[in-house]
């Protein structure tokens, strides 16, 4: 057996995990980069999607479409609600926003668990994907393989929407020159509500699609929020491409890194983050102004 062989599956899995973290964190990039809002309830929006998946999925394709629709709508609505709550402090400092959104996350998390029960619910993926396939001589979960393709398409979609559509242009303009956008007659409050709803929709989609990987449970919101914050900060606070690179790096650190250096596993994530941030306070990628 050659020396690379045992690491093929972890490396592949790192891509799946990294892309999941990216899709989950993409909404947070919008919140931070466009609306300049630090949203600590972001993980809760993912959890809404994940719990929806657990409640709706029954092993068929139709239920997946239904779960996606409900999860995206519910999380987007929660995002818009959050934007309303944030109105009085939208121009305040990040610490005040943190206080409010942390409170919402604590209360929202309790309500989700109260509604869906303390046990982790079961997530039934479509039967066709509920098995494993052989990749380069190794077994690998079929769902994760498909997830890589879907998440990559989603990432490309986010990029195209931001680059090519009118809404995307407004978003980019809001990053560069908010006063000018305000002069165009688009109110900051509307941009904020739109951005938080879009961020919620992305988190909800990530929650539904990612539920078989990071499933719904009492700690889901915290896990996702922490990973999202790490990659958003590493990615340079507002850069989509930087966040994608950071997410893939974190994915590989959490899988390939663990496989290569198992004894260092407990320290890898935070040691790598502290080292990178301390060396390059600007993150992994140079800031991409146009997100």
């Amino acid at each position: 057996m050659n020396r690379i062989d045992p690491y093929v599956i972890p490396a592949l899995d790192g891509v799946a995990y990294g892309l999941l973290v990216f899709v989950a964190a993409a909404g947070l990039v919008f919140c931070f980069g466009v609306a300049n809002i630090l949203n600590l309830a972001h993980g809760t929006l993912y959890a809404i999607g994940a719990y929806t998946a657990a409640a709706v999925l029954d092993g068929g394709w139709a239920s997946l479409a239904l779960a996606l629709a409900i999860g995206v709508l519910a999380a987007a609505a929660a995002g818009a609600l959050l934007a309303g709550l944030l109105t009085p402090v939208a121009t305040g400092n990040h610490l005040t926003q943190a206080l409010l959104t942390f409170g919402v996350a604590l209360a929202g998390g309790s309500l989700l668990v109260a509604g869906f029960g303390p046990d982790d619910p079961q997530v039934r993926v479509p039967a066709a994907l509920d098995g494993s396939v052989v990749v380069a001589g190794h077994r690998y979960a079929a769902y994760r393989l498909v997830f890589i393709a879907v998440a990559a398409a989603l990432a490309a979609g986010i990029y195209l929407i931001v680059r090519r559509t009118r809404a995307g242009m407004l978003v980019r303009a809001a990053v560069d020159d908010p006063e000018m956008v305000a002069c165009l007659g688009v109110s900051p409050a509307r941009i904020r509500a739109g951005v938080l709803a879009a961020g919620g929709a992305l988190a909800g989609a990530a929650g539904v699609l990612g539920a078989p990987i990071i499933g719904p449970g009492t700690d889901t919101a915290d896990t996702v929020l922490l990973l999202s914050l790490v990659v958003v900060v590493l990615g340079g606070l507002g850069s989509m491409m930087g966040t994608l690179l950071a997410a893939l790096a974190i994915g590989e650190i959490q899988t390939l890194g663990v496989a290569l250096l198992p004894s260092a596993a407990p320290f890898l994530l935070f040691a790598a983050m502290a080292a990178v941030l301390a060396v390059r306070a600007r993150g992994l990628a140079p800031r991409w102004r146009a997100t």
Partner: protein
Amino acid sequence: MREAVIRWVRGAVAAVVLAGLAVAPWMVDDYTTAILARTLALGLVGVSVALLTGVAGLPTLGQTAPYAAGAYACAVLGSQVSDVGVVQLAVAATAGATLAALTVPLVAPARGVIVLMITLAIGELVVTVLGRWRSVTGGTDGLAGIAPVRPFWGLPVLATDQARYLYTLVVVATLVGAVLLLLRTRAGLVLRAGRDDEMRLRASGHRMPLYVSGAHIAAGAIAGAAGSLLVVAQQYISPADFGFDTSALLLLGVVIGGTASVGGALVGAALVIAVRDWLFGVLPGHAPLVLGALFVATVYLLPTGVGRARRPRRGSPPPTAAPDVAPTPDHAAVAGSRR
């Protein structure tokens, strides 16, 4: 005139609170006394958080690291050296300051949200080490059976909740007084001025990195001393005492109390911790829900903005900061709670 009134109100409130705290052990039951002692120790960590967040302009989620270093140094080393409280305090403060000094190269050059994430990482790494270094720290189950201390040579050991509380109160009051005095000195003024406009201070020849590093080490020493008080109040420590929950709640408490005000930070941090502990006792199962609702309500009850330090921090705002928010780009944030 206004200034005078503010100062008078402040002084009066502080005096009433201090007097209330001093007579508290004779007014309330053992439970409340024990909880107050523990809360005061955490309030002191809150003071160190405020020193970094509000005064030096380094919003931190990592003061649990020197706090833990102080507590474990006190429990493992201090109790071997002596059973005298002030000696253990000194050991704990030294340990906290040493850890803070070691992390200065990581923290001091960074700003804003970056500081938050770096300090978060330091805090998590320290907790991981504490959980794994079983031969010294007792692992994730913690250290129990720590011997009681006597406050000073010749005094009896602290055996009751009242005694432990009064010892904690005296130490906290002394250290907070020392911090307040320190902030009135030139160094304190330079730090605050540097937080508001670092470029100007650098231009006028002040070596800001030196001042910021000094503040970081001093905050570490204070958090370390608080660790020793936790050992006294609780007679047990485990990595769970220094987890992410604690640092997040402390930072939020400091934000509620006012990041730039030492007294406010103490009260804010103590309140948040006290309310949490109280809720876990009286509303089993619903504490997080109520605590979350209280955080949201606090934001609305303090409509003029919670943070007092609202002027720009050191460094320039990021290019993404929109002008409508540019006057207050406090690059501060906290991350979600992890177990």
